[in-house]
């Protein structure tokens, strides 16, 4: 049981390039999320999904796209990378533990630098 896995672990992009951050979970969780973490800023929600084929925007979606074709996979696409997208990206999945609390399980993160 690997939990949530993310690839790559590190990446350097040039301005204007594109890339896809991969995320896979093997816990059969319906809900999945993408966050970015900047120093001193906590975690900001980029996109989330409540199941295969269903995605929605979070707090900071501009410059990103997602898809969810299977329960396991939730890739994040960066189009036309900009320096403002330099950050650490975390994927997470969750289930409803008690009907009111959704405990999230995080991947190890992808550190992205755009220069």
């Amino acid at each position: 049981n690997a939990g949530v896995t993310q690839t790559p672990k590190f990446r350097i992009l040039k301005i204007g390039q594109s890339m896809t951050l991969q995320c896979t979970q093997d816990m059969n969780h319906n809900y999945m999320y993408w966050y970015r973490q900047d120093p001193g800023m906590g975690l900001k929600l980029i996109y989330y999904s409540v199941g295969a084929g269903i995605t929605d925007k979070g707090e900071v979606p501009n410059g990103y796209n997602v898809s969810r074709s299977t329960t396991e996979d939730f890739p994040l696409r960066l189009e036309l990378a900009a320096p403002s997208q330099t950050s650490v990206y975390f994927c997470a999945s969750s289930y409803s533990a008690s009907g009111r609390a959704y405990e999230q399980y995080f991947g190890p993160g992808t550190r992205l630098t755009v220069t």
Partner: protein
Amino acid sequence: TQLLEQSPQFLSIQEGENLTVYCNSSSVFSSLQWYRQEPGEGPVLLVTVVTGGEVKKLKRLTFQFGDARKDSSLHITAAQPGDTGLYLCAGGGVNAGGTSYGKLTFGQGTILTVHP
């Protein structure tokens, strides 16, 4: 927009000391979770509290959810170097018929350093 304010932002203490981290908001949350994150890794869930006034203990860590479900605290007794890390609180949206979709609002974090 729901906001969570964590304080202090930085905490540097000696081994054996006690400490408290606070998480405050003007919004009501359905649940409050605390995560711990080590450098180069993702956050790991420590505890979830869902009832106003609830207190949970995890070894030397004590978590409390405010009566009005707007605030929470994390107290560590006799801190050890192994407690060093980033502590994050996260509030779950008020769940009206299951429409929150598990989205969490995170505080900005408290960086704790415990010196031997």
